[in-house]
């Protein structure tokens, strides 16, 4: 099954090339050059993984992560950063990030993480469906 990914980075060249490389590997990629645009896209579409740059204009990656998790708690967010610090990594994980990677990232490593995100998301969605079915069963009283 094709993984669906949202790539968020204000570095347009980076976004364009990484997007092409992922597409070449059979991943369905959408892109956003700002956190605001990413949140708008994430609200209307479902992604297996959202890969967000930590440092962006207007709103940084951690703020974006917080808002994405608020609106879509099942989202699997991977943070990418030019300079990873332990503090930022811990903060990201506390806010619910699935992983934290330093640029330049190895694409095969990133692809592995996307696959894990996909599997994790499937489990969460299945659980959500199960809960919904249980709720319906209780309400209808079959």
């Amino acid at each position, binding site marked *: 099954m094709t993984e669906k990914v949202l790539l968020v980075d204000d*570095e347009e*060249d*980076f976004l364009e090339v990484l997007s092409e490389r992922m597409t070449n590997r059979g991943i369905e990629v959408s892109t956003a050059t700002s956190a605001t645009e990413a949140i708008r896209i994430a609200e209307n579409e479902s992604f297996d993984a959202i890969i967000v740059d930590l440092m962006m204009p207007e709103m940084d990656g951690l703020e974006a992560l917080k808002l994405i998790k608020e609106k879509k708690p099942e989202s699997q967010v991977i943070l990418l950063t*030019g*300079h990873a610090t332990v503090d930022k990594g811990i903060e990201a994980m506390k806010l619910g990030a699935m992983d934290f990677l*330093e640029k*330049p990232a190895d694409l095969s490593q990133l692809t592995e993480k996307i696959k894990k995100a996909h599997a994790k998301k499937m489990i969460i969605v299945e659980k959500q469906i199960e809960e919904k079915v249980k709720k319906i069963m209780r309400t209808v009283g079959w």
Partner: protein
Amino acid sequence: MNQKAQISNDKGLRFFGKMTASVTHEIKNALATINENAGLLTDYIAMAARGRPLDTEQLNKLSMRIKDQVKRADTLLKTLNRLAHSVDDPIKTVNLSEILQLFALLSVRFAAPRGITVDIGGRPESINIQTSPLLLLNALFLCLEFSMEATGRSQCIELKPEKTDTGVRIYFSPLPGIDRLSNDSFLSSQIPDLLENLTADFIIDTEAKSVALDLSDPLRPS
């Protein structure tokens, strides 16, 4: 070293660290883009080995992108190198125009995320001053932080140096939102030691909608 000089040095070191972290972060972004372009080139070669012909236009685009990013990284490294040399001598004669250019390059990463540009105009008249380059950059940065809070709707902060009888004054304007900020803000309260070591002062002018760093040249007769 007295306590005030020590505090000022510590602040200078923190500022140096902050600038270094910012520039190296930007260099990593350039390297990440070069890395992805090199990766894409490898992808194209692998596709060619499987029979897909190489597209020269695509290759040319990749080559241009890599060149652009190398140029960007080179500018960043030059900036970092100039910053490193700013501490060669505690006090030296500096060309203000050159210091402002370095400052403009360092400030991009802090101003751009807020949609603000820092304009140092064309090459201003040549003004030389005896000062501590690192502390001067630090004081300019604090002025910029204050100015960014006071830009209001203006998205461009212009830096204008002017000679005075005792040294030089560097104006940051226009700051239409300056009325909202109180005069006892961090500018006047946080850094007296830095100002003392620089023989400088901050001048907040709510009528002119500007803030200025007034710098005395210790060698200029007053």
